[in-house]
C-alpha cells in the first residue's frame, strides 16, 4: 500500500464542496512548489460518475452522494480526513487518487448496448412499454458507473454495476434481441477483469450515490442462469 501522507490545509471553509477543498489544497501545494494531489473529477454536478474518492472508510464519503456533492460542513473543524483511491485489482491506481476504471468500459463493450439497424426514423412511442417497467428500467439506467459499488464491496465485486446495465436492457423490448448473449458476455468480461463475486452484503447498494437496488443483482443472476441453459452459444 502507498503510505498515507498527511497534508495540512488552513484555507478550508464549511461552504466548500469536497472537490473545491482539494482544489484549494492543490493551490496551496503548488504555491509551495510541491506536487499537487491528483484526483478524478469532471461535471461536479453528480451526474458523470468521474469523482471517486474513498473518504474516511466510505466511497464518496459520509453521505450517499457523489464526492462532488459532498460539502465540508459534513466534517468537523480540525478533522483529519483520510482519502484513498478505489481499491480493487480491476481498478489499477494511476497516480495518487486516480484509478483506471476502463474495466467498466470493457464490460459495456462486451454487450451493454442495443444493435440498431439503419433505416427510417421510427415513430415515437411505437413500442408500448408499461410505465412500471419503464420506471424500473430507468432506475437501473441511473447508474453513472462511478465504481462506488466495487469500492464498497469487501470482494471488490462489480455485480451491482453490471446488473444495473443488464437490467436496464433486459427489462425493455428493445433489449430482447441480444438478451441472452448480453448476460453471458458481460458477466464473462466482468470475471475476466478480476472483480470478485457477490456475497450479498448489500454494501454496494447502501453506498451507491444513485441508490441502485440489489434486486438488479438477483435479476442478473436469473438472466445468467436462463442464458446458460438456453442460449445457442456452446
Amino acid at each position: 500500500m502507498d503510505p498515507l501522507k498527511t497534508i495540512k490545509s488552513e484555507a478550508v471553509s464549511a461552504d466548500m464542496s469536497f472537490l473545491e477543498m482539494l482544489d484549494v489544497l492543490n493551490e496551496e501545494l503548488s504555491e509551495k512548489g510541491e506536487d499537487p494531489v491528483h484526483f478524478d473529477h469532471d461535471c461536479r454536478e453528480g451526474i458523470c460518475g468521474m469523482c471517486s474518492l474513498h473518504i474516511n472508510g466510505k466511497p464518496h464519503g459520509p453521505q450517499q452522494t457523489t464526492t462532488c456533492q459532498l460539502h465540508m460542513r459534513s466534517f468537523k473543524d480540525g478533522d483529519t480526513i483520510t482519502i484513498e483511491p478505489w481499491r480493487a485489482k480491476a481498478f489499477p491506481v494511476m497516480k495518487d487518487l486516480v484509478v483506471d476504471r476502463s474495466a467498466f468500459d470493457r464490460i459495456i463493450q462486451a454487450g451493454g448496448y442495443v444493435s440498431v439497424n439503419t433505416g427510417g426514423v421510427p415513430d415515437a412511442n411505437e413500442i408500448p412499454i408499461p410505465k412500471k417497467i419503464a420506471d424500473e428500467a430507468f432506475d437501473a439506467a441511473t447508474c453513472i458507473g462511478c465504481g462506488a459499488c466495487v469500492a464498497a464491496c469487501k470482494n471488490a465485486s462489480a455485480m451491482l454495476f453490471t446488473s444495473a446495465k443488464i437490467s436496464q436492457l433486459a427489462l425493455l423490448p428493445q433489449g430482447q434481441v441480444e438478451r441472452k448473449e448480453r448476460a453471458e458476455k458481460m458477466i464473462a468480461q466482468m470475471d475476466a477483469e478480476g472483480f470478485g463475486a457477490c456475497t450479498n452484503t448489500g454494501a454496494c447498494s447502501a453506498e451507491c450515490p444513485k441508490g441502485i437496488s440489489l434486486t438488479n443483482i438477483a435479476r442478473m443472476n436469473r438472466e445468467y442462469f436462463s442464458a446458460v441453459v438456453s442460449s445457442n452459444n456452446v
Partner: protein
Amino acid sequence: MVANPLICTLRLMANNPLIRVVSILNFVFIAAHVVYSAILTKQNKSARPVGYAVANGASNSPWASRNMGLLGTILLLFILVHLRGFWYEVKFGEMPMVTYEESGTIKDVYTIVAASYENVGYALFYVVCMGFLAFHLSHGFSSAFQTLGLNHVKYSPVIKKVGYAITILIPTLFAAIPVVMYIQSLS
C-alpha cells in the same frame, strides 16, 4: 418397561431409509459448501490485493454478512468436534448397550450424550456455537435466495421473515438440548 412413544418414534426414525439418505446428502452438501466457499473466498480476496487503510464496513452492511467465512470456519470446527464426540463414538467407539422392550438391545447413545453434557464447558461450547450458527443463518438463508435470483416483491418479504424465524428457532432449540441436559445432570 412400558411402551414409550418417544422411543418408538426414535426407533422408527433410525430404521427409516429416508433418514439415511438425508444424512448422507447432508454430509455431501456440507462438504461441497465448504470447498466451494473456500475457492470463492480465495478469488474474492484476490480481487482486492491492496486493502483500505480506513474501512467503515459497519456503516453499510451487517456484521454477519461480512464475516460468513469466519463464522463458517468456526461452524466447521464445531461440526468436526460434534462428529468426533458422538458420530464417531457411535460408529466406531466402545458403546454401552441398553435393552428396551420395544426395540431389543441397542447402542445407548443417550448415556454418552448425557455424560458429555455433564461437563459445563462442553455444554457451553455447544450453546456458544449455536450462537455462531444463528449469525450464519441470519445472512445465509435470504442470501441463498438472492444468489439464485429468487427475488420477487411478493415472496422476498416472506423469505426474509422465514429466514428470521429459522435464525431464532433452529439454534435456540439445538442449544436447549445441552442446557436442559446439563441442568438435569445437576440433580
